[in-house]
């Protein structure tokens, strides 16, 4: 048999129907639902008298606009209505929901893996573009719109054309102290915001193999920022070990058989991709974005570029617009940029290892004067665990705010936002204009770099922190 990529294997196993001249009908194993993109889909079902085909393959949570401070009183009436609507819909159609009072509540892309819902070889969809996060387990996971949410609810399938495959290989070993966030920001900065268009990216190479599951999730999460339809990593023993014992994973002897099946999805030796990119792990430095798209990033040791640095007139124009919005002057050292806010959270970087890394930096230090720093765990489970380890105390002692879980300042649909004209070091995934609030200026970084920015008030290579703080 010809060697195959993981994407081809998953596709072949899930194509319900393949006919000439139209897209394939793809079976969906898992559908994650949240409060913002689902209400009209459920309403559509009701209006046409349809049912949810597989409530057992559907799982709902509330995350986008939940408050992260006091969860008992919700001041935003529209948010409240969206949450109540989701609860009522889940009740009506028999779907399990991790509502705001559930111990399982959290960001949709954090709780899927946490509960063991996310597994290798699965097709997974959700009405949120960062669904690619689940690809870390070797699942084919992508975001969909409201009509498609309704379509999956009713039919457990979607019409999709077979994607192109792309390998992104991170070759060699990372320098010490480089995180998964630095890897993905470096990849996007190097190859651009649309190099993945039309493709599913598979991340390979020694540096990727060496990552934990949580780090792999950070990488796959931002595939969409490279324009890709999805991103994934072939499963290996690290994947299997992570999943063992989780709620939705089989127990006992069945587990071995299950694990073997999972591993069989990994890309075969010698399989060919439609496109390939390579980056040398050694060249990756701690990254900071300076602009308004995630590809506009540089090493913390570099300076803000000038429009003339653009390779094309369009790129030059984009740089100019970004600099204006971000109020930055070309040639400014990244380490001279001062910030007023720090956000550690989002489905990119809010898992326990992210919090540990940030806490290690915060430990024994204090948030700089004039800086407001906030830590928002990705799920209630992560929050409990962090509190057990005493991380909340470390953060609070250093002057960080310690919050309940949710999307929070990743998209600022809830009361958390950055005021106009102010600057934020953020561990989230999008630095678009207005993303963290009208006129807010976002710089994307890793959790350790965000914590370092919090205690110094400006960007600094976290590896030089001791020198910087004395």
């Amino acid at each position, binding site marked *: 048999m010809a060697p195959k990529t993981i994407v081809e294997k998953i596709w072949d196993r899930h194509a319900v129907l393949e006919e000439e001249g139209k897209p394939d009908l793809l079976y969906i194993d898992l559908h994650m639902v949240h409060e913002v993109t689902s209400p009209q889909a459920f309403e559509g079902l009701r209006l046409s008298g349809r049912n949810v085909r597989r409530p057992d393959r559907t799982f709902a949570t509330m995350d986008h606009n939940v408050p992260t401070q006091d969860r008992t009183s919700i001041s935003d009436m529209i948010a409240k209505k969206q949450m109540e609507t989701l609860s009522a819909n889940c009740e009506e159609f028999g779907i399990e929901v991790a509502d705001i009072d559930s111990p399982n509540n959290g960001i949709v892309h954090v709780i899927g893996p946490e509960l063991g819902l996310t597994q290798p070889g699965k097709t997974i969809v959700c009405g949120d573009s960062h669904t690619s996060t689940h690809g870390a387990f070797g699942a084919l996971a992508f975001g969909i719109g409201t009509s498609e949410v309704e379509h999956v609810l009713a*039919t457990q399938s979607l019409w999709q054309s077979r994607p192109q495959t792309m390998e992104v290989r991170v070759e060699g070993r990372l320098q010490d102290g480089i995180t998964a966030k630095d890897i993905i920001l470096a990849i996007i900065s190097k190859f651009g915001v649309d190099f993945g268009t039309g493709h599913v990216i598979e991340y390979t190479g020694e540096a990727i193999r060496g990552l934990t599951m949580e780090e792999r999730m950070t990488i796959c999460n931002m595939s969409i920022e490279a324009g890709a339809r999805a991103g994934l990593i072939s499963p290996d023993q690290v994947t299997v070990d992570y999943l063992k014992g989780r709620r939705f994973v089989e127990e006992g002897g069945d587990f071995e058989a299950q694990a073997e099946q999972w591993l069989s999805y990994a890309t075969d030796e010698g399989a060919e991709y439609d496109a390939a990119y390579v980056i040398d792990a050694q060249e990756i430095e701690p990254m900071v974005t300076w602009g308004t798209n995630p590809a506009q990033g540089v090493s913390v040791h570099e300076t803000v570029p000038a429009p003339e640095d653009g390779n094309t007139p369009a790129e030059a124009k984009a740089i100019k617009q970004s600099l204006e919005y971000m109020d930055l002057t070309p040639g400014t050292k990244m380490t001279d940029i001062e910030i007023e806010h720090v956000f550690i959270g989002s489905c990119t970087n809010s898992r326990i290892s992210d919090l540990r890394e940030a806490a290690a930096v915060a430990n024994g230090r204090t948030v700089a004067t004039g800086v407001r720093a906030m830590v928002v765990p990705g799920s209630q489970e992560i929050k409990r665990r962090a509190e057990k380890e005493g991380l909340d105390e470390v953060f609070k002692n250093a002057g960080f705010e310690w919050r309940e879980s949710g999307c929070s300042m990743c998209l600022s649909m809830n009361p958390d936002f950055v005021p106009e004209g102010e600057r934020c070091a953020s561990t989230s995934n999008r630095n678009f204009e207005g993303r963290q609030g009208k006129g807010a200026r976002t710089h994307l970084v890793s959790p350790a770099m965000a914590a370092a920015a919090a205690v110094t008030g400006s960007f600094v290579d976290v590896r030089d922190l001791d020198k910087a703080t004395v």
Partner: protein
Amino acid sequence: MEPIVVHKGNVGVLNRVNVDTDQIIPKQFLKRVERTGFGQFLFYDWRFNADGSDNEDFELNQPSAEGATILLADHNFGCGSSREHAPWALDDYGFKVIIAPSFADIFYNNCFKNGILPIRLPEDEVYQLMENGKDEVYELTVDLENQKISDDHGFETTFEINDYLRNMLLKGLDEIGITLEYEAHIDAYEKQVNA
């Protein structure tokens, strides 16, 4: 969804290019949990004055556009954000057919998912229809079965449309309806993989 086979109705003329989805339905109205009821906000910033009264200068507020179900617009209608609230709002307001020289891709596809027929006609024909309809009630008959548009004064033209999409509207099938015709395949698949 209501099938569209032959539709006869008055036209509303919106002689503007690049009408984007944020103009069709401004973003302050997106937070509803229903998909109905968006019609009252259609073209909100154009339709109403700052004090909430009707803007008498707006094209669709003219007596000639009263009860219009066919919208005539210029190039690149429906560009901008992919929000599905735009076709929801047009449908809820009463539009069943939109005729323009060109449409934005995602919007064009979203129309079929929501029971609206978008028709591309050559620029000169669209402009002629706009001329006919701008000052008085002007009815068109859109025959989807035969892919023809005509008026009561001898005008007649034909239009192109993808068979699959045409069929969807003729039968009043939404995409889910079409997929459900393959339900046996989905059942068989689930059985086979023991899902």
